[in-house]
């Protein structure tokens, strides 16, 4: 009779094999010890704070996302010219990979000295970034004022105030690009400043057979349209509090519902490209550059890309529309913030780099690479009539209005993938109501924060 295997006929021979496997798994579990991740924190550097970097040769490393490689490499070259004894080697990963790898890289044995972070509070929670309060005092960075707010984390691990953990060298922010030819075609003589004016322009475009807004929903970038409305209706502060995880913060509010309902009305009216949910970001850039749509809600980072794909005078940039003529100008922004690794052996030299980022030379490099430079009092020249000039003037106007709001997608490390992408796609795809949309986002937010 042939030998049968399986649960009913487990032969005597398979028992040693099972035992060996069990012992192997058991011993590995035993070796791993107790709970994962509890095996002591990262050793923190203990070099006394000094602004003197001496003349000894020092090599530093910097870790960033590829999207910022151009500007980083230019900044490093500029810094090395001023500080010949310090060399910085940059290493880069694709932007989404960089965000994921950053905590792992910073906790590794060969952690970079300098690293850019978009979610600084997570790294601070895990003790991966050096507290820069000493350098702030030594170099006098406090004159940067609220520009440093996003780089501060309080003792109870709330972003926005407290100790300094990084220095931003530039900002990206989001607004509305428009196609000048299409604007002329529908007789848009004055550019829309309020939501009502914007909506009227959308209706005109739709009537003329032009796609009013092109959005890249495949990556959930319909969120940009929602947040522009949310910031306008709710105001900058409540939204910032939500992103900075203030206690009891909620996005399920009447103002947010107004924003979500307005967005839903625009979707239902056909004001977005029909294939929004399968449109990638790259495709949205090239289709906007090709003149398919009147508006595209995108960030300052898109300008260098559009400049290559479209004629420089074929498109322009305006601030997101406000709630009424006296509404506060708002815009979604993020800073490229560089921190120093808690494991760096050369924190003084690394801090010298952060300090150099305030120089005019550094700020010119930042602007030339499509980012908005730190505001230090002295102005960086821009070409008159260029889109870059509009970007800088819109940013200045919004920050003067106190309307800079962090990206809602950055509230937690996972909320973009767990909530914003699927929920905006569902709203655009007519699967959920504005009410459900907000409730689902809030639920994911509370779940991720363990509330």
């Amino acid at each position, binding site marked *: 009779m042939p030998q049968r295997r399986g649960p009913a006929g487990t032969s005597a021979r398979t028992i040693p094999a099972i035992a060996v496997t069990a012992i192997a798994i058991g011993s590995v579990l035993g070796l791993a010890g107790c*709970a*994962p991740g509890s095996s002591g924190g990262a050793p923190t550097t203990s070099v006394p704070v000094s602004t003197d970097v001496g003349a000894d040769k020092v090599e530093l490393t910097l870790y960033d996302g590829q999207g910022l490689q151009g500007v980083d490499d230019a900044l490093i070259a500029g810094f090395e010219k001023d500080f010949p004894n310090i060399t910085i080697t940059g290493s880069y990963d694709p932007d989404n990979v960089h965000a994921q790898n950053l905590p792992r890289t910073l906790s590794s044995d060969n952690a970079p000295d300098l690293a850019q972070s978009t979610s600084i509070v997570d790294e601070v929670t895990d003790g991966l970034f050096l507290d820069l309060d000493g350098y702030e005092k030594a170099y006098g960075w406090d004159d940067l004022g609220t520009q440093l707010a996003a780089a501060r984390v309080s003792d109870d691990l709330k972003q926005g105030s407290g100790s300094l953990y990084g220095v931003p060298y530039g900002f990206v922010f989001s607004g509305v690009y428009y196609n000048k030819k299409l604007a002329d075609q529908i007789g848009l003589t004055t550019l829309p400043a309020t939501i009502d004016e914007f909506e009227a322009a959308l209706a005109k475009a739709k009537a003329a057979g032009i796609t009013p807004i092109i959005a890249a929903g495949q*990556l959930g970038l319909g969120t940009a349209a929602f947040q522009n409305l949310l910031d306008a209706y709710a105001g900058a502060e409540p939204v910032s509090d939500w992103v900075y995880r203030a206690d009891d913060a909620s996005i399920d509010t009447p103002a947010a519902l107004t924003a979500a309902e307005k967005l839903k009305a625009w979707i239902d009216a056909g004001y977005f490209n029909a294939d929004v949910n399968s449109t990638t970001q790259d495709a949205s850039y090239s289709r906007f550059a090709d003149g398919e749509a009147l508006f595209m809600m995108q960030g300052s980072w898109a300008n260098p890309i559009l400049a290559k794909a479209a004629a420089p005078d074929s498109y322009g940039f305006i601030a997101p529309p406000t709630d009424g003529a006296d509404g506060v100008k708002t815009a979604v922004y993020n800073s490229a913030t560089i921190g120093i690794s808690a494991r760096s052996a050369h924190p003084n030299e690394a801090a010298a780099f952060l300090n150099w980022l305030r120089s005019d030379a550094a700020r010119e490099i930042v602007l030339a690479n499509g980012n908005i430079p730190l505001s230090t009092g002295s102005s960086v020249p821009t070409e008159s009539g260029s889109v870059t000039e509009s970007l800088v003037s819109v940013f200045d106007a919004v920050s003067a209005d106190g309307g800079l709001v962090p990206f809602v997608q950055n509230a937690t490390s996972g909320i973009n993938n767990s909530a914003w992408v699927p929920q905006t796609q569902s709203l655009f795809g007519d699967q959920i109501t504005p009410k459900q949309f907000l409730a689902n986002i809030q639920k994911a937010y509370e779940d991720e924060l363990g509330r």
Partner: protein
Amino acid sequence: MSTIDGNASEIVAAAAAGRAEQRSARPGRRRRGRSLGLRWLGWLFALPAAIMYAVFVLAPLASTIQYSFYDWNGIGASTWVGIGNYVRVFTDPDLLAAVIHSFVFIIFFSLIPVAGGLVTATLIRDIRSRAVSATARVFLFLPQIIPAAGAAVAWTWIYSNDGALNQFLRFVGLGDVARPWLGDFDWALPAVGIIGTWLSLGLCTVLLLAGIGKIDASLYEAVRLDGAGWWRELFSVTLPGLRAEIGVCITITTIAALASFDVVFLATQGGPGKATTVPGVEIYLLGFTQNRVGLASALAIVLMLLVLIVVGPIQRLFRERS
């Protein structure tokens, strides 16, 4: 998390080990005294491989099991949560939907390709011209050579609003049916499934063709003399003769369906909404973007067990009775 990729090789290895055991069983019984020493010598020879297996397969598997009982962000301190992560896997509608989608993919990754492969293989067998049949084989096997990631990117173009599929539909006057396939809540899942069908059809055809080649030609001659038609021939000779090959095809493609990642991630990232998400994509997103290593590990373990539960009976069903 290496368990996803490890599944296929583990099963193949386990099956091979089982077969080897059966073969060596008989001489061992006859000469018991010498065989005891030989048995330990055998383990010694297996030691290098066993060490590699322990370090690269068992150890990650053990850590995955361990992590699955903790709430851990991958860096900081962790908290013991018992079976909390497993409870979440079975109660979170998004994660459950992911599991259901992977079962839907069995239809597209496994059933359709095996059925299509059978028909194609029998048709190719009937082709008299060697050149034509060789060309057909090459073209059918081509999707197997192209990396799934590349195929997914190419298919996203085909499926796009102005892509080849919609252009064709508009050309033949079916413009109303045209839609952004991967952005449509109802159609995205089957659209991604068809990419899988395209990928595994060639493999199934080539495997089944090789199997048909081994069937004794006199059997075909005999049924034909008895007056059997094409269908009769298929059911009486080809299918029984291909039992083992069909088993391999179904096993490999079912694992590919349940543990799918690359095609879905590159085509839709699980969207729109969560319409095409599968456990592989959820594990990746949980582990690497949401930093929920414990929950991701629990889902990975559940996925591994699911594959074993589904593939185990398939293996049994198609085992050759000799």
